[in-house]
């Protein structure tokens, strides 16, 4: 049952991911990206992580994609500009993509990515996944969490500084 759902979601996710990079219209791209992210959220639910799913939808689909769209619409990126950009970068991009794909394939075939097969933890099984996640995050992974927080803060401040400078200049 879960498998069937997984394949449905995964197929849609991959197809729309292809859609993201293949369509010319940036708004259509954003639409496909949104679909992909929603499918990923669905897969999170299948993995019994409703919190992650909700956050995925909430943050990525609900906020970040809206910002993307906002920017796309305000900047009005036309199709021509996009193709131009592709043309300029294709010399470097094509080898880079080939290398990337090779690496991914190697890792998948080499089984380096496969996680240790095992059941869900107890917390997740009784429906307290959120609690487990919170506890893990704020105890075992506190340091990386704080580092990431500071990194984000720095990025935030940096963005503001850039904008301020721009405005003064």
């Amino acid at each position: 049952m879960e498998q069937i759902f997984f394949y449905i979601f995964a197929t849609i996710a991959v197809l729309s991911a292809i859609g993201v990079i293949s369509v010319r219209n940036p708004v259509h791209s954003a639409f496909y990206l949104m679909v992909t992210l929603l499918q990923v959220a669905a897969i999170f639910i299948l993995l019994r992580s409703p919190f992650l799913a909700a956050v995925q939808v909430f943050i990525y689909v609900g906020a970040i994609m809206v910002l993307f769209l906002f920017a796309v619409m305000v900047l009005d990126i036309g199709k021509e500009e996009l193709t131009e950009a592709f043309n300029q970068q294709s010399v470097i991009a094509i080898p880079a993509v080939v290398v990337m794909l090779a690496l991914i394939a190697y890792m998948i075939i080499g089984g380096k990515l496969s996680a240790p097969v095992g059941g869900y933890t107890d917390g997740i099984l009784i429906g307290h996944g959120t609690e487990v996640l919170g506890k893990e995050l704020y105890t075992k992974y506190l340091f990386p969490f704080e580092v990431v927080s500071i990194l984000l803060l720095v990025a935030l401040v940096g963005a503001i500084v850039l904008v301020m400078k721009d405005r003064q200049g």
Partner: protein
Amino acid sequence: MPDISLIATLALMVIKVLVITMILFMLPLPLTYVERKVAGHIQVRLGPWRVGPHGLLQPFADMIKLILKEDIVPDKADKFLFKLAPFMAMIPAFAVYAAIPFGDKWTIPFLDRQVSLYITDMNVGILYVLAISGLGVYGLIFGGWSSNSKYALIGGLRSSAQMISYEIAVSFSAIGVVLLSKSLSLVEIVKHQGGTILHWNFFYLPVGPVWFFIFLIGATAEINRVPFDLPEDEGTLGAGFHTEYSGMRFAFFMLSEYVAMVTVSVMSVVLFFGGWNAPFNIPFVPPILWFIGKVILFIYFFMWLRFTLPRYRYDQLMTIGWKILIPVSLVNLIITGLMKI
């Protein structure tokens, strides 16, 4: 007999979904009527009068009109997204109701079977509601963009900017409620407010009312109702994002808007006013009626608001969102956290 139980559960689920969907579909009929009547009376008019006694058949007339109206797709519109957008607005509005608790368990008379008056009790219900209702804005954005009309585009842009600005404040108020009720599950939140009226989150002084007003203002902005209806500001944008829509596609937008209004009313009741809990212990009044009564009061409040307040200017909207609501909610979050330690 696990199979029968499973089938019964599934059947019950389907029935619940169908009932709620049907109710939601039919909801705009009385709501448009009531809204026009309220508007009429606030403006010392009569409101709908001619169709049926006291104009009661007016919503049906409107419905027939919308169904029969030609569905116009502009020539230079992005046809795919243009046709998709109304559904993208409508589906999230309906999907939200998967997590809304209308009441607690209810025993069906003579059958001795307990039914929960909600579709599911998600342990992240509040997040789910916020996340899904946030998706509704895509309908507006895509509808506005795909119409290939300047008014519609500006309407879509405004709704996206508005949504981003107020989503934060609304989320903070949700965090506040989660802190107060110590759960992400809406059922748990309602249950936590049980007892007397003083247990309601609204009356958790002093932070409760502040969270409520933050939620109320933010939610009003998110559902694009007066005084924050800039995406469909008829004074400057024609009809905003749905300028180019007609017939049933337009009706879907209307539908999702009304449903969103109901959602905000429901969420206000659930998060702050104790859900199905009775304020006073009056026997023989089923909890569901308390719930519906409270929701109706909120719906009336939103209509009342609409015909009282003028529209904010766009910069005022942004100022309220970023410079007042977010700082206030941050301060309030700290106070709430301190109180809960």
